[in-house]
């Protein structure tokens, strides 16, 4: 495989070109000027300091979710329930912060407890999917999906019911937290270096965990062949469960970041789709933690870059999603074609 590296690179460039061609065709089909649309997306990423800091704010939670699913993928698990795990984390963080609104604890401690609550919330939600899978025989994809909907419904219930804003109960979200409970940000921008620091810490952790530890090796053994791993003495279900728990914890932290640093309250769409996006990134980088940081940064930038599209060009902001998903699709297809080609020779 190694000597074909330059060829692999060529195939990957080909996939990117195909994805751009497809997206351009979609733009033409929608009657939009492609060049202007792309330029608008790029301008939306790096056009101003606001845009750049927004990209960095989106980067942190996406890094966390991507790192989380790298672990579940390593264990051979499709953690589609990650969206619900982000939500559960956000709910727990919001709950913890609400409890401590009038406490005399220093703000720093309140935030730390809020983050720990988020971590626990995400892990609990992941544990549910894990238990359903391991002890109930329910495929983690369907268990996870169901749990996603349940988490969203629970959040909606809290937002309209017990945690409703005084006076107006609206699905848009709870009352905003006072500024002292916001994660400290850089200047007047939305970006919090603390959030990004956490993300980078986790990516380094996961990189080394998967690369050079006993735990990572056994996790991968479980993912490649459960039976063989079991026969070799790996406690397989415990490892699957660990993958779920750690991934859920990371997702919960992403939820905590969304609450304390991005929205400053609980909203029904608080996950921003970062869970599914993390799954996409993991597929795109072929499950290699090394590439997680740059690719998540690029995807976060695409997400932010598309936000202005409805205002500037009267296009739906889902264009960013279309570009991200076609990229992943064509990378998968081209990789398949490449393997097919070399198998036949």
């Amino acid at each position, binding site marked *: 495989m190694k000597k074909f590296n330059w060829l692999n690179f060529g195939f990957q460039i080909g996939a990117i070109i195909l994805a751009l061609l497809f997206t351009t065709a979609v733009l033409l089909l*929608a009657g939009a000027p492609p060049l202007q649309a792309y330029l608008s997306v790029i301008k939306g990423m790096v056009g101003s300091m606001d845009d750049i800091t927004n990209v960095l704010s989106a980067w942190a939670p996406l890094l966390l979710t991507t790192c989380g699913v790298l672990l579940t993928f390593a264990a051979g698990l499709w953690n589609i329930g990650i969206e619900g795990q982000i939500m559960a984390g956000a709910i727990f963080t919001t709950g913890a912060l609400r409890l401590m609104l009038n406490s005399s604890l220093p703000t720093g401690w309140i935030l730390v407890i809020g983050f720990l609550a988020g971590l626990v919330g995400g892990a609990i939600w992941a544990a549910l999917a894990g238990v359903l899978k*391991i002890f109930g025989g329910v495929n983690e994809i*369907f268990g996870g999906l169901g749990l996603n909907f349940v988490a969203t419904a629970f959040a909606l219930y809290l937002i309209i019911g017990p945690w409703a804003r005084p006076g107006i109960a609206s699905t848009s979200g709870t009352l905003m937290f006072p500024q002292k409970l916001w994660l400290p940000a850089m200047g007047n921008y939305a970006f919090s270096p603390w959030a990004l620091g956490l993300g980078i810490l986790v990516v380094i952790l996961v990189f080394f965990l998967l690369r050079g530890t006993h735990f990572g090796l056994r996790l991968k053994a479980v993912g490649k062949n459960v039976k063989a791993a079991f026969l070799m003495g790996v406690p397989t279900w415990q490892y699957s469960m660990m993958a779920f728990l750690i991934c859920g914890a990371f997702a919960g932290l992403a939820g905590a970041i969304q609450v304390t640093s991005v929205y400053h309250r609980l909203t029904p769409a608080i996950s921003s789709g970062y869970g599914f996006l993390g799954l996409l990134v993991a597929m795109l980088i072929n499950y290699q933690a090394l590439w997680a940081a740059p690719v998540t940064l690029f995807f976060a930038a695409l997400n932010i870059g598309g936000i202005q599209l409805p205002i500037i060009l009267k296009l*739906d902001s889902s264009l960013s999603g279309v570009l991200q998903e076609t990229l992943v*699709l064509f990378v*998968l297809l081209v990789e398949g074609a490449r393997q097919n080609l070399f198998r036949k020779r």
Partner: protein
Amino acid sequence: MNSSSILLGLAGVLYGAAPIMFAVIGETIAERSGIINLSLNGTILLSAMAGFAAAVGTGSIFLGFVAGAAIGALVALVVAFSSITLKQSQVAVGFVLTLLCRDLSYFLGHAYIGVGGPRLNAVPIPVLSQIPILGTLVFNQDVMTYGSFIIIFLAWFWIFRTRPGLMLRGIGERPAAAYVRGANINRLRYIYTIIGGAIAGLAGPAFSLSVKAGWAGSLSGLDGYGWIALSITIFGGWDPFRAAFGVYLFSFLQWLGLILQPYLPNIPTQVLQVAPFPLMILTLLLVNISNAEWVQRWLATLPEGTRRVVVKLLRALRALPPASLGVPFESE
């Protein structure tokens, strides 16, 4: 609530179940051949948008449904190509496609948001619609609802009562044996995945031209039905009749949530609307739990009489997937 409004409500249950029925039957056919088409949720959204756009553009509801089926077939073709020819993970490709189709439907459908469009009318069947109760319930529906009744029987007949259907079960269960009998496994899998996709593609326009007429982008309220349909396919044990039962049960529960709403003022509508999802998990649990190892061990410890009852119960609930579901076929 009087009996006639309950009857109309139940007729609405059958009507509202029609789109999900197409999705579930389509998926059942594809999975019977051994291919999981995980793109269902996106397929429904994109075919709903495309069907609506085609019907608005051409003024023909029929062409709207053709467009929906074509989209479903096209997406299924990508799934088939990538998993059969390129041997990529069906789940990975299906997952990417489900997101891609969703975003495509939002992006391309942007111009159609709020546009007025055609809607299927009810076509009462002469004579039959006059039968008390049954007439209102079954024979006073629109064409697609009739279609959703017929497709259950057609699919069941094809799978369990015809020779090609036997082959279809064969390529999903033991492709090697079917191959020895002269079946072209991969070609058949292509065909069934695409047919299944086309049937599932009817679900979209059945929403956007009938049950939830119109297009409102991400507010159309269609996101999620595809996942429900995928779960019901499992619950249905890849048998059209059992699947149909699951679809109607789901539709009934949704209706129940709606009519119970006034009696449960503390629970917001949005929560009752998702009530079927935890129930779905529960049913999947019941269907699958007998496959778990600890259950087998636990059963062995039960006294003989109890054990027999429990085993019988679990067996009745259990659904085993086609043995080669998701496994690529190599002729060597």
